[in-house]
């Protein structure tokens, strides 16, 4: 009996833990979004100007700019971390241009991505893009060069693709960024 009390760790109540995490998330999500680049988050008055011209709102994505900001302000954890809307944002910045309170809703979208990245909640294509950026210096990369040949250009473009020293420079840069800390892709 004594042994059990001393040696066995206490039973972890998962429901309690999840609730505690949820409460913590609710408390700090606004702070994190501000820290991740959306400095003027709190200036949002939910006027909806951003939603009126957002391609995501128009095409029927659930958590477009205005709604995303509301969800952050009230700390809706599951809704925020499970939905891929921020990854569909085309970064058009209509919202930034039109916002009367300088909230820069695009920065909120971007900050939400940055928060999701910490939770590994990102699309496979994004990981592929990052890997390709690191391996080749191009997020969009193709090995086939028929198109370049067809139009009379050298197969190798004057980019990191044909310049090993330049590619190494880029790799050095990337290794010294948060990307390396996150460990999302192998970085030799």
């Amino acid at each position: 009996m004594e042994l059990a009390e001393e040696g066995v760790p206490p039973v972890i109540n998962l429901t309690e833990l999840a609730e505690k995490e949820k409460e913590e998330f609710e408390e700090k999500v606004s702070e994190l979004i501000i820290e991740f680049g959306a400095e003027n988050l709190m200036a949002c008055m939910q006027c909806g100007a951003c939603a009126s011209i957002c391609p995501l709102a128009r095409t029927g994505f659930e958590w477009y700019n205005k709604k995303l900001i509301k969800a952050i302000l009230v700390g809706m954890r599951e809704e925020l971390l499970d939905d891929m809307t921020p990854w569909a944002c085309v970064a058009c910045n209509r919202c930034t241009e039109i916002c009367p309170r300088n909230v820069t809703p695009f920065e909120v979208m971007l900050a939400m991505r940055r928060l999701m990245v910490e939770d590994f909640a990102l699309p496979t294509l994004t990981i592929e893009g990052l890997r390709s950026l690191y391996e080749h210096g191009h997020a969009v990369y193709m090995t086939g060069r028929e198109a370049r040949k067809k139009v009379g250009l050298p197969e190798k473009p004057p980019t990191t693709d044909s310049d090993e020293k330049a590619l190494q420079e880029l790799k050095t840069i990337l290794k010294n960024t948060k990307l390396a800390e996150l460990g999302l892709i192998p970085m030799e």
Partner: protein
Amino acid sequence: MVSETETVNENEERKLKFGLFLGCNITFNRPDVEQAMRKIFPALGVELDDLAGQSCCPTWGTMPSIDDVGWCAVAARNLCLGEEKGIDLMTACNTCYASLNEARHKMLKNPEIMNSVNEILAKIGRKYEGKAKCRHVTWVLYKDIGLEKLRESIKYTLDGLTIAVQPGCHFLWPSEVYPDREKDPFNPVVLRELCEALGAEAPYYTKLIDCCGIGALRSTDPGKSFALAKDKLECIKEELDADLIVAGCCSCMIQFDDVQDKLRKEGKINFSIPVLHYVQLLAICMGFDPQQVAGICVTPRDEIIKRILEGGKR
């Protein structure tokens, strides 16, 4: 004492020179756009530098989705390649235009970001001072070269053709970060005037500033992306019955070129409007080989190119 030659030199126009920033899509998907730029600019008296060793700008789904410093560091390395030669960059891709200039704006506005970036750049022996920026080909043609010189430089005119222009989102917003700005960023006129300079009509239409739907939207939900593009294409057909769509952005060009084929196959549209980047249209009008400067497409261009070459000789 000032010699005559020196006086002449002072009065001479300073030769324009830009670093040709290619990005990913033009390099691998649509190198005919690269070829178009390599043909038209030297012919217009603009010298191009290859910016050897340039990389991805970086695009939105990569470093900008991680943090500001990493985004700015990759962008700054690209900008350094121009700055070290005392020249600005020039691009035909709106994403590159926006990512590079937004990064520059962040660095100029926030010394902390600039310092962190330069600490990273020091490891590769570079330093970004914030001088070099990225110009858009559309603006360089409009402002630095000018409509008059474009009119003089073409062999074929576009008389009788109606063009639907597609400036693209990242040509316009957020206007604060760009080196050149439309008077009203919600009513852009520069690309329309550039098309008119070649002899075409390029009228306003209701969805002129609508998004093409490519990029993250398309990779996340192709159905929604195609629906957005279809709305715009139908507006172009109904309001203008355009002969041609001309984009200032290579991504918009790819989207409308590609999506029409998909929508036709699904029976969702029953028309076909050829799509060109403005630099390709200009290159054709200047007499360069259409196979080289506009040879890659999904929606056929043969008929419109034939019509330009046969119909519009000056």
